[in-house]
């Protein structure tokens, strides 16, 4: 079968996912709502997943795609824990704005 990557070229995928990744990073940096920060992190992870898939096709090798499952699972676990923490914070503080979380400093 002819590999679609031969026409588009792997670099473009890398750039794409890098851009996605950076979007995630900027999201993390600029948003103050913990949930959104959290989602931006998810964007970063997904950018990486995309790249994994691309590479695995590029190398004609399944490992990459399997790894994506791993990372998805991990991400899910993180989500679970993260949301739990957020909930308890919301219970205690009534807000999830990370600017309010400056009690620990110095």
């Amino acid at each position, binding site marked *: 079968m002819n590999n679609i990557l031969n026409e588009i070229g792997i670099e473009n995928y890398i750039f794409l996912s890098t851009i996605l990744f950076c979007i995630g990073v900027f999201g993390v940096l600029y948003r103050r709502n913990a949930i959104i920060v959290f989602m931006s*992190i998810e964007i970063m992870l997904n950018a990486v997943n995309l790249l994994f898939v691309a590479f695995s096709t590029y190398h004609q090798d399944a490992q990459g795609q399997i*790894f994506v499952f791993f990372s998805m699972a991990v991400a899910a676990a993180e989500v679970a824990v993260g949301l739990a923490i957020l909930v308890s914070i919301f219970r205690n*503080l009534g807000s999830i704005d990370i600017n309010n979380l400056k*009690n*620990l400093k110095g």
Partner: protein
Amino acid sequence: MNTLIAIIGLGVLCLLFEIFELRKAIIPITIIGLLAVLGLNISEFNSPAAYYNNMIIVSKFSTAFSGLFIILTIFLVALSHKFYEHQQSKISDFIAIKIFLLAGTVAMVSFGNLAMFFLGIEVLSIALYVLAASNRLSTKSNEAGLKYFLMGSFASGIILFGICLIYGAMGSFDVIEISELSQSAELPVWFPIGIVLVTIGMFFKIAAVPFHFWAPDVYEGSPTLTTALMSTLAKVVAIATLFKLLTIMNADISPSFQIVLVIISMASMTVGNIMALRQVNVKRILAYSGISHAGFMIMTLLSTANTAGTLLYYTSAYALAGIAAFSVIIYVCKNNENEDMVNFHGLGKTNPLLAAILTASLLSMAGIPIFAGFFAKLFLFNNMLQAGFVALVIVAVINSIISVGYYFKIILAMYTKEPNEERTGTPVTIYAVAVIAIVLNIALGLFPSFVLDLLA
């Protein structure tokens, strides 16, 4: 390999005990189990092997460090008995999480495949997020948890990206293949980028400047036992893994990368020490001292050829001292909402033994002779001078001078101030842990060859 399985089994066992209402038995059983696992691990020491087509590679390095991790975990579990006495209902969860965390750490040092590496690191991190935030009702704990969680998962993202780039360059996750390929001629540029990103992610885990900001806050906010775990186990695991990673990926680190390492190490030492000088919260002080120690540990990455033994020695010395110190802190601050130095006033009078132990552990961290910390520094300097990093050594020396300043602040508080509270009760477990840890530390100091030659 069996070690890993055994540990996970043990974790599951803990949960089962909960089901069968055997809470009382959990901690003793776990400790016994862990001791058994330790034996198992030692038995694997001289039989290096690879399992599940190189998912797990058991080597001297991995087993040695796994041994250290298990010992640390034993201490931590032992401490849990006193620490969670008011949350008996959750005890099994806490213990189980620690055990799984241990599994993650073992997986990390004995990975043969980046997938395993990633999973290990995530198991560790997620467990830590939970533990950090485990004190549901305390806002400090929550804040610590969230900070650690957000930044941690950010770092995981970076690591993941790095792994991805490596995979892209090599078309494989198997470290052995990767290292073989990495010897070959021209590589796509994103291979080194990937390595750098992974390294940065690990730097975050060991709290090296400028990725250290989370450490003081999280250490202060988390429950003391968790802090102990982070500052001893987590840090050690991270540096060990990073060491292994760099050793395997590219044996010869490029000069420019060396410069980066040198700068980061210097920065970590200096920032850590200077920031610690004016702290009042003991956990914060130890956090900063941990940062500076991270700087010391990073030195070993500069000549990976012959520093494995030194790293093992340094980490064990540091971790043991840390355990001893934290057990005292747990004892002192169990009734106080914060860990300010005020609570330590007059400990020398009210509880000379623990005061002596804390003093000893601090002296060890400061690198005063006969304590292991001194020899750790000595061997480190020795290696570094051998590799010709004189300037780095000088900076390190100056830093160890500065560090004395804040370690002695605590000692002074214990011996020169008047006690401000009656301390009653002598929790056996804490005493035991503290004494054993410091004794081990001194023993290491008197017979360094024992550990040093393991990886020689």
